[in-house]
C-alpha cells in the first residue's frame, strides 16, 4: 500500500505528466481583432521598499519602473508597475525571476504566481474597442500608450492590462476568472467588429 502510494506521488511529480493550462489554445477572431490565450509564463508578485529597488533591478536584469502606469521590458522579461511598491514581473523567455530575486539580500517579498494567472492577447485595430467593452479606463494612445500597464477591471473581474503595441494588449487575469474574461473579450470583439 505504502509502496503504491509512493509510486503514485512520484508519478504526479514527474515532469513527463502533461501540464494543461486553463483555456490552453483557445482563440477567437472577429473583424479587426484576434483574442487568443497565450502560452504559460513565469510570473512573480514583487513588493519592495524604495531602498531595495536598485538591487532587485540588477538581479532581474531590467530597471523596475517607478512611474505609475508604466512597464519596463528586456530580453523576454517585463516588469509592470502596479503600485508604489508593487510590481508584476512576467518572464516569457523560460527564465525564473523568482530565482533571480532569491539572490538579493535587500528586503523584499517575491511570490511565485506563474500558475495563478492566465494571459490573453487582444490584437488588431479593434483591440482597444474590444477591451473598452468592459474596461472603464481611457485606452486612447494619449492616455494609455504602448508600454502602459495597469491593474484595472474588465466587467466583474480584476485584470492587469499591458499595452504591448499601438494595437495589441496583454490581458492578465486570475486563472479562476479566465473563462469569464475570455468569454467577455470574445463578446467584446464581436461588438467591436459589428
Amino acid at each position, binding site marked *: 500500500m505504502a509502496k503504491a502510494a509512493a509510486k503514485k506521488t512520484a508519478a504526479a511529480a514527474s515532469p513527463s505528466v502533461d501540464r494543461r493550462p486553463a483555456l490552453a489554445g483557445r482563440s477567437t477572431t472577429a473583424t479587426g481583432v484576434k483574442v487568443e490565450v497565450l502560452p504559460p509564463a513565469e510570473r512573480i508578485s514583487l513588493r519592495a521598499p524604495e531602498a531595495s529597488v536598485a538591487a532587485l533591478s540588477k538581479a532581474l536584469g531590467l530597471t523596475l519602473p517607478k512611474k*505609475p502606469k508604466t512597464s519596463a521590458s528586456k530580453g523576454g522579461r517585463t516588469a509592470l508597475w502596479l503600485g508604489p511598491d*508593487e510590481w508584476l514581473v512576467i518572464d516569457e523567455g523560460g527564465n525564473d525571476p523568482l530565482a533571480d530575486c532569491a539572490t538579493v539580500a535587500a528586503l523584499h517579498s517575491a511570490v511565485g504566481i506563474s500558475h495563478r494567472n492566465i494571459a490573453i492577447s487582444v490584437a488588431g485595430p479593434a483591440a482597444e474597442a474590444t477591451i473598452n467593452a468592459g474596461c472603464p479606463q481611457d485606452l486612447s494612445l494619449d492616455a494609455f500608450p504602448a508600454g502602459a500597464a495597469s*491593474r484595472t477591471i474588465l466587467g466583474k473581474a480584476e485584470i492587469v492590462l499591458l499595452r504591448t503595441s499601438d494595437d495589441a494588449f496583454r490581458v492578465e487575469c486570475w486563472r479562476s476568472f479566465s473563462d469569464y474574461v475570455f468569454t467577455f473579450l470574445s463578446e467584446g470583439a464581436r461588438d467591436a467588429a459589428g
Partner: protein
Amino acid sequence: MLLIRCPYCEEERPELEFRNAGEAHIARSTDIAGESDDDFEKFFFIRSNPKGIIYERWRHMHGCARFFNAVRDTVTDKFVMTYKAGEPKPAKLPGVAK
C-alpha cells in the same frame, strides 16, 4: 462615470476601480484596553455623518490597491480633493467657501 483622482497613480481613474473605506482621521487609542466603554463606543461606532463636506478613506482597490484620503461633498457627491494616507487634514479646501 465619476472620476476619482488617485494620489498614488497621479491621475483620475474610473470610480469602478475604487472602494469607500469609511470616515478618515479616526485615530485608534494607543491604550485601547484602558478606554472607557463610552470612549470606545465613540471611537468604534459613532461617525460624523455630515450633510456636506466629509473626510473619507478610499481604496484604489482595482488599481494601485493603496488607501488614501478624500474630501467629498455628500450633497453633490463631488470629490473636492484627494491626498495620500498619513497626510494631515488639509487646512484649505479648493473651491469650498467656509
